[in-house]
């Protein structure tokens, strides 16, 4: 085997390679967690609380235990004590307290899944029920509202409030201003593959097939919570059917399945969440209430940007959505203020959902920008161009690569924006009001520390590249193979990638659009070390484990990706039905590793943005406390028939600051701004400004 020079003459990066795991997936032979062949499994079903707040006062498991085939019934009365309750989300079955409806308060293990399900329904719990509150009715978005509190930081560690200049003075002196209250809905991540855990305790060691975005994260959590030495826990997850953030951290089910496995040593315990359970305890996007105030001078330059965001958190654990953070950097203004407040109510723990923070925040900011454009009589593309800041307004650092204006211009050109009549409610075509709208997209470019990869020369002339990364349907199997091929100077067919196993070198979570950047950088770092150690003709068995190298000066620039999205919306004049016949995005995201998998990331995220705009809404019944439309017939996600002409384009570029590949990360930016583009287009179509998502037919009647 000979390794070619780096960089290669015809790089694998950039090649339109088919998904390496595509054939396995379309033939149904890629083993997801539940399909991992395990011997003689038993099946777990969870018992969920039917009150939203209170205490369990009595437990009667007699009927459940009497059912033939039932092996184990766990509740707080008999479950093993966990070793750490630092994170209360994972202190499952430890106390009789109920903090939200649908909480895991018990589990049944049986010889078959049907019996487990039947027995779970036979566990009788008596409650002392306390009054609960589950609706984010932040009637005030004022940061001093007594119902709300100020978290110490917002996800993951941003400052809670910021203020530059004097926003009130800026607004007072503005030639045009808008003051807009908006809201986004409670949304549940709905990956196709349900959350799944299959675990066995054997000789003191725990093996876990899990559906997760990060095997090392799950391993670390389980070891801590269960009090096991890290080397005794192995988590495997080679194929994951989507996560959208909800599998970025473990959730109570992983702990429960492992508690059961520890109680039944030697047996594989299998659990897959029902769709209804995925609305109860596997994380979701908090609803938000936002107030955005913008002021502009006579030339359309922003003189004030103020963004107050309220979201909800659980009593069990805090999650603070960083909704207003985008307004700190998106447009230039001498006066910028952002605040975040939380209502702590009796709800499940909110968590990450694709572009947490940026997604709801850019809805607020970009709808307000459109309203400002209308108020100022300016074209909405032009308003954004005029306010493109030369340096990051928040830090004063130069931009790594800010090409928002290029995205807006190219998008306008491709979409046919020129000559647009700005007046709303002017175009009635075949009974439909037609309009167009635009919004910007943004997402930070991140790399996570601590990643390592192991390169090993194999007997057959191939190179094994191992890292505990996750492919959650994004294309990581393919993209990482391409990166490894170039870094090692061999063809992609010579790379044997191994991912999704916590026995492989440490990898960070597939989240924050940082996966390819972080894991890829580790692979490039390890490849370099491998070449140094073993030369261009490594002998079989030669192996090197190494991590990523720092990019000099990375911290001296503000690193973000940008984009522009254009939507055409039709609203039926008689019935109010809303359709999006066209959606077009142009993105500036650094170098593209694989145009095929990249395109599907953008198209998927834009579709998800359309879904947020038009369809998705978890309806919580305040009397009961849970999401009542908790299945895919009632919780609407945009269907194929809703997607007509959907286009994603990107600028041809290479980032010099993030990592050696020149990439930034593309998984999330496509959902950022989409909903605003749709709302703005719906306003242009009808003259009706919908500020509360989703944009449904009734809002136009």
């Amino acid at each position: 085997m000979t390794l070619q020079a780096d960089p290669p003459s015809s790089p694998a990066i950039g090649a339109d390679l088919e998904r390496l795991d595509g054939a396995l997936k379309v033939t149904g032979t890629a083993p997801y967690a539940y399909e991992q062949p395990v011997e003689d499994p038993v099946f777990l079903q969870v018992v969920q609380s039917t009150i939203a707040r209170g205490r369990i006062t009595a437990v009667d498991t007699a009927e459940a235990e009497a059912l033939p085939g039932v092996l184990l019934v766990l509740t707080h009365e008999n479950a093993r004590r966990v070793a750490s309750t630092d994170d209360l989300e994972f202190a499952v079955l430890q106390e009789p307290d109920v903090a939200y409806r649908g909480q895991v308060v018990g589990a049944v293990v049986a010889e078959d899944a049907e019996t487990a399900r039947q027995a779970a329904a036979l566990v009788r719990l008596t409650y002392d029920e306390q009054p609960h509150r589950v609706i984010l009715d932040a009637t005030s978005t004022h940061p001093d509202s007594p119902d709300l509190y100020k978290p110490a930081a917002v996800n993951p560690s941003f400052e809670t409030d910021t203020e530059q200049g004097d926003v009130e003075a800026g607004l007072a002196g503005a030639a045009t201003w808008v003051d807009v209250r908006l809201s986004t809905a409670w949304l549940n991540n709905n990956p196709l593959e349900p959350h799944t855990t299959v675990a066995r305790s054997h000789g003191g060691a725990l093996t876990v097939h899990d559906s997760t975005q990060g095997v090392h994260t799950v391993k670390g959590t389980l070891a801590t919570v269960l009090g096991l030495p890290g080397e005794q826990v192995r988590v495997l997850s080679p194929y994951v059917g989507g996560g959208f953030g909800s599998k970025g951290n473990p959730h109570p089910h992983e702990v429960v399945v492992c508690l059961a496995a520890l109680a039944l040593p030697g047996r594989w315990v299998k659990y897959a969440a029902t769709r209804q359970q995925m609305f109860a305890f596997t994380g979701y996007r908090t609803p938000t209430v936002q107030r955005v105030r913008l002021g502009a001078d006579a030339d359309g330059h922003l003189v004030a940007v103020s963004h107050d965001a309220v979201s909800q958190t659980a009593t069990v654990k805090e999650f603070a959505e960083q909704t207003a953070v985008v307004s700190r950097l998106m447009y230039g203004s001498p006066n910028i203020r952002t605040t975040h407040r939380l209502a702590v109510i009796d709800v499940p723990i909110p968590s990450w959902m694709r572009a947490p923070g940026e997604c709801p925040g850019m809805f607020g900011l970009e709808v307000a920008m459109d309203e400002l454009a209308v108020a100022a009589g300016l074209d909405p593309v032009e308003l954004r161009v005029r306010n493109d800041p030369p340096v990051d307004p928040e830090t004063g650092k130069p931009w790594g690569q800010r090409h928002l204006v290029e995205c807006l211009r190219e998008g306008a050109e491709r979409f046919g924006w020129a000559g647009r009549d700005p007046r709303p409610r002017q175009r009635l075509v075949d009974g439909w009001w037609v309009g167009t709208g635009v919004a910007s997209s943004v997402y930070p470019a991140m790399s996570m520390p601590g990643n390592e990869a192991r390169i090993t020369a194999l007997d057959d002339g191939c190179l094994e590249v191992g890292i505990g990364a996750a492919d959650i349907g994004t294309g990581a199997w393919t993209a990482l193979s391409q990166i490894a091929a170039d870094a090692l100077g061999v063809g992609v067919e010579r790379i044997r990638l191994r991912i999704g196993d916590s026995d492989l070198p440490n990898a960070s979570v597939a989240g924050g659009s940082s996966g390819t950047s972080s894991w890829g950088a580790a692979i490039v770092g390890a490849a370099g070390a491998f070449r140094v150690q073993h030369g261009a003709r490594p002998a079989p068995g030669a192996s090197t484990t190494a991590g990523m190298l720092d990019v000099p000066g990375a911290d001296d620039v503000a690193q973000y990706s940008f984009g522009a999205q254009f939507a055409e919306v039709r609203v039926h004049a008689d019935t109010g039905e809303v359709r999006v016949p066209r959606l077009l995005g142009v993105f500036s995201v650094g170098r593209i590793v694989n145009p095929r998998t990249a395109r599907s990331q953008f198209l998927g995220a834009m579709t998800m943005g359309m879904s947020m705009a038009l369809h998705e809404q978890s309806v919580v019944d305040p009397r009961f406390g849970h999401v009542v439309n908790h299945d895919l017939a009632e919780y609407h996600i945009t269907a194929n028939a809703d997607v007509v002409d959907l286009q994603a384009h990107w600028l041809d570029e290479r980032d010099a600051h993030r990592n050696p590949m020149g990439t930034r990360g593309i998984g999330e930016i496509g959902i950022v701004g989409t909903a605003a583009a749709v709302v703005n287009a719906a306003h242009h179509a009808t003259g009706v400004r919908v500020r509360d998502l989703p944009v449904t037919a009734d809002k136009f009647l």
Partner: protein
Amino acid sequence: MRPFAYVRADDAAGAVATVAADPEAGFLGAGTNLVDHLKLDVERPGLLVDVSRLPLDAVEDVEGGGLRVGATVRNSALAADRRVRHDYPVLSQALLAGATGQLRNMATTAGNLLQRTRCVYFRDVTTPCAKREPGSGCSAIGGYTRYHAVLGASSHCIATHPSDMAVGMAVLDPVVVVLGPGGEKRIPFAELHRLPGDSPERDTVLEHGDLITHVEVPAYPAARNSAYRKVRDRASYAFALVSVAAVLEVTDGRVADVRLAFGGVAHRPWRALAAEELLRGQPATEETFRAAADAELAAAEPQPGNAFKVPMLRGAVVAVLRDLTTAAARAAGTGEDR
């Protein structure tokens, strides 16, 4: 989910006898609705008699006109039937507006008629529901009502019947042919589904052991100018917020014949007789259509959360009748036999 016994019926009479003999028994069609309810613990049968393979899968011509649709004819097959598409487009369109291609390939005619409400509280055994447990009250009242009734509801139940096909059938006045423990019954379609009143647990007038064997659709030439319009939040795979089935015959600019039925607004397909009455003989104009819709909707009692259905339904009625008027004029203009 509880254990239950399963048998496959060989003939209709045997199926009826088996179910009639066991108060815990029920019929199973394709199971696209019933199996969900087994898993959700909403239905708890002791025995299921599978009738989906009975030889009732033909769409036959009836002497003197009309069609006789077997109970196990799949929704896709019925929608695609040339006679249905030509003579009763409203029925074909209604079928195709329902569910998804995969579900329609499975779902049976009888199962579709007898599918149960999608009310989220009915489908969630952790919440009270009088349709599931008589006397336990209606959780939808004061709750999530987007898919709930605005016509003919009661304080015990505000659920809607979810079928699109049934709304399409309602304007064709078919007869539902039933084999019961006491022999054959012929039930006019308009009498099959009930309003909830104080016994919402009963969706229809059928008795235990009654097997639907056929639906007989009479000849009705006016139905060639007919349409089904479903208003829903997403373009596919969503139940109706409201829907309208309409047959319209226009002569010299006036409504010569009209039939209207609404979906998504009541516990049964809602035949809009008051609107039909008002339309007959009147000029085929948007004003008349709107007035007719308003006449029918005068009785509407929306819930907080679904008042939009009144203007939405009015808009849908106007849109459908306008389209059918245009189609009628076009057909008259070309002298085409529609």
